[in-house]
């Protein structure tokens, strides 16, 4: 028995350890900031104020959070069935096409709340379709899902280039993007949510898809822990041999899981495409699919953890943007370094501190 198997109370496991990891990440980021000649404390202050100081900053933070929740859920659902879906990026991208086609088709005729359910379905279907082929290859041919989903990111990227440059572009324009959706194809801003706390949303794009993301968190929780399908997914994820013993069909679960995972990734597109820019733009996903991997990892693949982790990354994105604006020597790339530190310490080195804490805990409790 090593210290890994020593049970710790939940507040240490889910509270103290992540917190200490975060502090370490910030400490080393601070060293980097200090090394380039800026004050780490000032930088941290700027980052936090930028992300949380004003209504508009909060609006941007939650806007990013929304995208990360969707992609984080996408990765988490797959992980529960033992599948590492690296293709959330591409699935979200193709999901954007689904959402945009619905919006373009309906925005002239109906108000947003009629368009929305169709757009959700459209985005999810296109995302799921993008995951379907890798899922089938894994289920029936044993091609590794990590490889195939990565390759599909490139395939989707090329496909979307073609679609936007050749088919969906507004005739006579230079920008590879669709026309701007009418209000019937847009998701409303959540001014009232920020106003409830006395702030002003301003230009921030926080929109209705934030609420959809929260609903999805709940539905994913129900799926994983309260349904027979979720039970089968978890069994397969932890022990494929136990699953085959229990008569759980591998190919069926792999297909269903990946379709759900791809669908969740696809829904991410609602946020930027219908909530923020009101048009389908090239490369609109912008890495949110990959951030979803870190979010899921940090959030221990649990919807509640994913919300918190997504919020953290939302703060880093928004605060980081403000920081590089206020401190020109801290470039956009520096922000990526800081985000990398967080991923490194909170995700990959998750167990680094554990043995020390286990020992301290044992001494403290006298056992």
């Amino acid at each position, binding site marked *: *028995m090593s210290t890994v198997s020593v049970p710790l109370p939940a507040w240490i496991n889910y509270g103290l350890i992540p917190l200490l990891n975060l502090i370490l990440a910030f400490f080393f980021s601070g060293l980097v900031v200090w090394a380039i000649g800026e004050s780490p404390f000032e930088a941290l202050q700027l980052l936090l104020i930028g992300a949380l100081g004003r209504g508009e900053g909060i609006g941007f933070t939650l806007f990013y959070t929304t995208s990360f929740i969707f992609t984080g859920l996408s990765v988490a659902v797959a992980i529960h069935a033992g599948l590492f879906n690296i293709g959330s990026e591409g699935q979200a991208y193709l999901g954007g096409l689904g959402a945009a086609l619905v919006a373009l088709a309906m925005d002239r005729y109906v108000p947003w709340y009629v368009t929305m359910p169709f757009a959700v379905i459209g985005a999810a279907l296109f995302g799921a379709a993008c995951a379907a082929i890798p899922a089938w290859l894994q289920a029936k041919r044993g091609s590794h899902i990590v490889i195939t989903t990565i390759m599909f990111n490139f395939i989707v990227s090329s496909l979307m280039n073609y679609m936007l440059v050749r088919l969906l572009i507004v005739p006579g324009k230079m920008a590879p993007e669709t026309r701007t959706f009418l209000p019937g194809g847009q998701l409303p801003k959540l001014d009232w949510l920020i106003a409830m706390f006395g702030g002003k949303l301003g230009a921030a794009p926080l929109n209705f898809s934030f609420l959809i993301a929260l609903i999805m968190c709940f539905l994913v929780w129900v799926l994983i822990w309260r*349904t027979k399908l979720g039970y089968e997914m978890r069994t397969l994820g932890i022990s494929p041999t136990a699953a085959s*013993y229990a008569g759980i069909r591998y190919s069926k679960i792999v297909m269903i899981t990946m379709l759900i995972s791809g669908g969740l990734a696809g829904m991410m597109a609602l946020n930027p495409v219908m909530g923020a820019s009101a048009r389908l733009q090239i490369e609109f996903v912008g890495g949110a699919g990959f951030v979803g991997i870190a979010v899921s990892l940090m959030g221990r693949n649990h919807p509640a953890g994913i919300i918190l982790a997504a919020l953290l990354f939302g703060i880093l994105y928004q605060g980081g943007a403000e920081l590089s604006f206020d401190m020109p020597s801290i470039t956009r790339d520096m922000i990526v370094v800081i985000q990398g530190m967080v991923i490194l310490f909170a995700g990959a080195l998750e167990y680094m501190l554990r043995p020390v804490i286990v020992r301290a805990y044992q001494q403290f409790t006298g056992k």
Partner: protein
Amino acid sequence: MSLDSPKEPAIELVGIDKKFGTVHANKNINLTVAKGSIHGIIGENGAGKSTLMSILYGFYQADHGEIRISGKPVTIRDSQAAIAAGIGMVHQHFMLVENFTVLENVMLGAEGGQLLAKGVASARKELKRLEDDYGLEVDPDSVIEELPVGSQQRVEILKALYRGAEILILDEPTGVLTPPEADHLFKVLRVLRDQGKTIILITHKLREIMAITDTVSVMRRGEMVATRKTAETTVEELAELMVGRRVLLRVEKGAANPGAVLMSVRNLTVRDSRGVTMVDNVSFDVRAGEIVGIAGVAGNGQSELLEAIAGIRKPSAGEIFIDGKPVAGVDPAGLRELGLAHIPEDRHHMGLVLKFEEYENSILGYHRDAKYGRGPFLDLDAMRRDAEEKIGKYDIRPPNPRLRTANFSGGNQQKIVVAREIERDPKMLIIGQPTRGVDIGAIEFIHKRIIEMRDAGKAVLLVSVELDEIRSLSDRILVMFAGKIVGEKSSEAGEQTLGLMMAGIAA
């Protein structure tokens, strides 16, 4: 070994204490092992034998206590230090590089210098000497994966001796051996002892203790409860010391009352993923109200046979009938519907999901049943109530359905599986290794349940590598060797006869 000189201690453990969190794995252990003796250590699973040996071999550090080798206190920080102190360990699961030769494996980690050639020559010479001295014959140039298990184990022993081990620790060494191979091992161990080596044998098989050891120490719940001269003790006394109460070593059962054939297997052939034939044209019947035992050394196709019947593995030829209906190709879920229950031989990977809480495992395979939730949903309350009922009935400890399954002892884990499969009241029960890694108390309990199933008119197919278990439970015994059924015997057949059949020598 000279008899007149008083035997000095090779190892002394003084006041060894070790805790893992709240688990007190070793409580103030004192143990003296005489030089040039075979010292057995027995105890149920979780009694602390492995922890104690791991401390001796440097995997763990004791919280308190002292280790003395030949009278001198030593600190063993890691296995390197253990080797330097002259301690060698033969693990239950071999630590060999499968596609290296015997010689390469023996040298591994002790190559002697940057260039290989010189080391190889001297190693070959040393290996030859060791083989001659101790009767450990193995061809130094054969590749490990082509050797039978018994020879692989000899390579492990050679590895330890090559590193200058004076003290050899063997952890459950006969678990994977045929009876003749085990006999050979014991011969080797006696030679080693007579040449002055000290041997510590960890086992749960009382018969082996009686057959080979000079002294035996019994552990129970982290404590060393007794040390006896083997000649002055009995199997009954040792069993009682291990469990802490009197145990029935024999299974009591009445005569079988076989009814109609419930399960039949006809010309079944199963190939593994590499296309190697594991089950070769096997046919037999199991009737209602009888236990058919399949004896054989591990790896002779029993696992594949069970998996094929359970629907986990597709047979490549032949047919399986349940109640007269052909079922080859039906999946495990469909077979459960037909009344087939399966206690798999590998509870860690197949019968249980160790990371699940107990109540989640208590429905594995039956999770689609309406009683565990309507439609697509699971009814957690119903699941927990059901689990609590089984916990009570099968005396599963600790009685907590919310505990992670990995935190139950081997015996209690097995009871979770047995409860799940038996309580569904199946018509047929197929069982693999029902008591592997299970403590004596639980063995007694599980054996009783199996007999009860038979007496209730169920067809039971039992696979076990424990010959004693097969002999005491089965009404008929089939012996499997190299994928074939090489013969059928009644349960009265002698161990000798069955042992030879298992080794493929006589039919």
